[in-house]
């Protein structure tokens, strides 16, 4: 659904925080109290994050001006693409420089709180509907207190909540090919719609063209994308059952701990 894809900053934080995952998992019986969650939106309200956001916004605005000036002088589309690429790289570098230390402190704080509460996994608040332990306030308190948070001495306990890095799955040949094929189909269809719309005079004809386009896209998705989604789900389920996991989430929703089954799922998908 659309709304679930519009929280890039949260996901970015989750991805960075997820890097703290340590140790090889051993699966033990589930305990409802060992699942924690964090409201990353609240974390972003901390003064240090707000300052960093302002700093980043100013950098972005200046860079944008420079990019526009240089893009005007670009001789070809390749030059423009190269410029855009440089722009993105500079932006990403600055983001790492500004937010990197904050994320590192945040992940240490989460690990510390999780350890003190005996949590095996901390996930994004957004995906918890019932229960779980809210560690947001503890983490915020730790981050707001003087000095840097101290990392826990022990690794997180084994978790029955698994996670998969779907970006790695997307890199498999069959997934990349399907993605490109679907992308190209979409581009061709849009170009075709553009041509058709030129001669259209009535709303009814226009709507007919839109409906045909939508149907073509849906059909193609069902033909190319859906089988791969089903295949992935089945592979994850197979691994989850084998490892005795209760459920498996995407890495973007994970903040700390959990059991990484990405390589197992990749292995199953490569065999199929």
């Amino acid at each position: 659904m659309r709304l679930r894809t519009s929280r890039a900053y949260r996901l970015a934080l989750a991805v960075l925080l997820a890097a703290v995952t340590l140790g090889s998992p051993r699966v033990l019986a589930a305990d409802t109290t060992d699942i924690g969650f964090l409201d990353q939106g609240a974390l972003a309200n901390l003064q240090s994050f707000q300052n960093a956001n302002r700093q980043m916004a100013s950098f972005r605005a200046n860079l944008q001006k420079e990019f526009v000036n240089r893009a005007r002088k670009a001789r070809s589309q390749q030059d423009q693409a190269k410029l855009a690429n440089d722009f993105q790289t500079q932006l990403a570098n600055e983001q790492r420089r500004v937010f990197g230390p904050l994320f590192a402190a945040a992940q240490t704080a989460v690990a510390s709180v999780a350890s003190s509460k005996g949590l095996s996994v901390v996930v994004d608040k957004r995906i918890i509907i019932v229960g779980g332990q809210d560690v947001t306030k503890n983490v915020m308190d730790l981050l707001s207190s003087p000095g840097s948070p101290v990392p826990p001495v022990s690794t997180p306990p084994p978790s029955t909540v698994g996670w998969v890095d779907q970006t790695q799955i997307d890199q498999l040949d069959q997934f990349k090919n399907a993605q490109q094929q679907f992308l190209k189909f979409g581009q061709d269809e849009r170009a075709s719609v553009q041509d058709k719309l030129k001669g259209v005079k009535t709303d009814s004809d226009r709507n007919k063209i839109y409906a045909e386009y939508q149907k073509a896209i849906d059909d193609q998705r069902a033909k190319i994308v859906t089988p791969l989604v089903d295949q992935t789900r089945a592979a994850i389920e197979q691994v989850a059952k084998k490892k005795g996991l209760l459920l498996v989430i995407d890495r973007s929703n994970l903040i700390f701990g959990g059991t990484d089954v990405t390589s197992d799922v990749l292995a199953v998908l490569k065999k199929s």
Partner: protein
Amino acid sequence: MLAGCTKPAQQTAAPAGGEGKVGYVDIDALVRVHPLYPQLAQTERSIDALNLRSLGPGVGSTGSSLASQDAELQKELTDASNRTRQILSERQTEYQREETAAINAALAAGGHAAASSSVGANVGATTGKQVGNVNAEMNRDVAAYRRTLSSQEQQQEKSYEHAVSDRVNRQMLAKANELQNKESTLELQLQTKDASERLELRTRLGNLALDQSAREQVKAQLDALDKSESDQVAAMRNRDQQTLAQLRAQLRGQAQSDVNSGVAKIRAQNGAKQGSAGGGTTGAAPAGGVAATNLPPDLKAKIDALHKEYQARYAHDASATIAQFTKTRDDLQKRYNELHAVDSGANSSLSKELAALQAQHDQLYSEIVDQIEREVRIVAQIKGVTTVVSDVIGDGSGVDLTQAAKKEIESLHE
């Protein structure tokens, strides 16, 4: 205590392992069975259609800013045209005067009386012809511009009608959505208000020890609760339908009136532009005149040479003036085209429409998810599941509450 005391529909998902304390749901699947999903899907289709529409040809319109810039350009063209005419006219008079003086001097030197009227008329006729040519060229430009305006007028009228029709459709859609949102809000409010009572009644129904009459009594209470809610929502829907019908009639009448006045305004504006563009020609000097036929051949040749010289000088001067005018006109035409190109892009209200639809979509989605989460909490409570996670990408041995929650949500349709 509540586990196992559920309706049959809720018993489909048995705990698959562990202590059965951790469950999960597929939110997307639940959204698709929610009563408000058709409305959400419709909004998504509208967003997709608008996104596609932004690929199509732009619809031009006549904003007040555009009209004023347009008029400014038109004024500049008219001014340039008048200036050129004035310069040419002044040059004509000046050269005519100089030529007449030179010819008179030549005649006086040859012992002839100055015949300024006849020779001057001859000179005037020649230069007048040249001015006439220049004016004809400028008039052709103005005529071409008028033809452009006429064609644009037709396009503007079509665009205007289209814009009015779009506006009416948007107003209708906005009102319909507003009313639907109110209905949904009422529905959600009622369900939230009665949630605890409903849960209690359902729990009592699930109690196996309940005797038949007590069970029927509880069921009747539950039915009454449902009926009360649906009656209130139905009453609101009826009122909304009437409101929409009235609005439709009102908007149709208003649209027709707007189209009529808009078309009249476009014609009036373009008429004014044509009027300002259509400056008449400066009166060309009358052709012909009396030729000096009784002069000696050498004097006649001298006068002819003088005439040719002044004619050449005037032609050179005039062509420079005309070139200047042509350049000005071309620049103005370019600016005119740019103005209209920018307008068709800037005028498009698609992005605003898209943002509004997206906000509406997000709000509706949020309301749907909130209600789903409330239902999931009830199901989890009944099944004794203490932690429920959404956005799961792979099933494990946790309790999949999706089917049970789906049945609860589907029952909202009833």
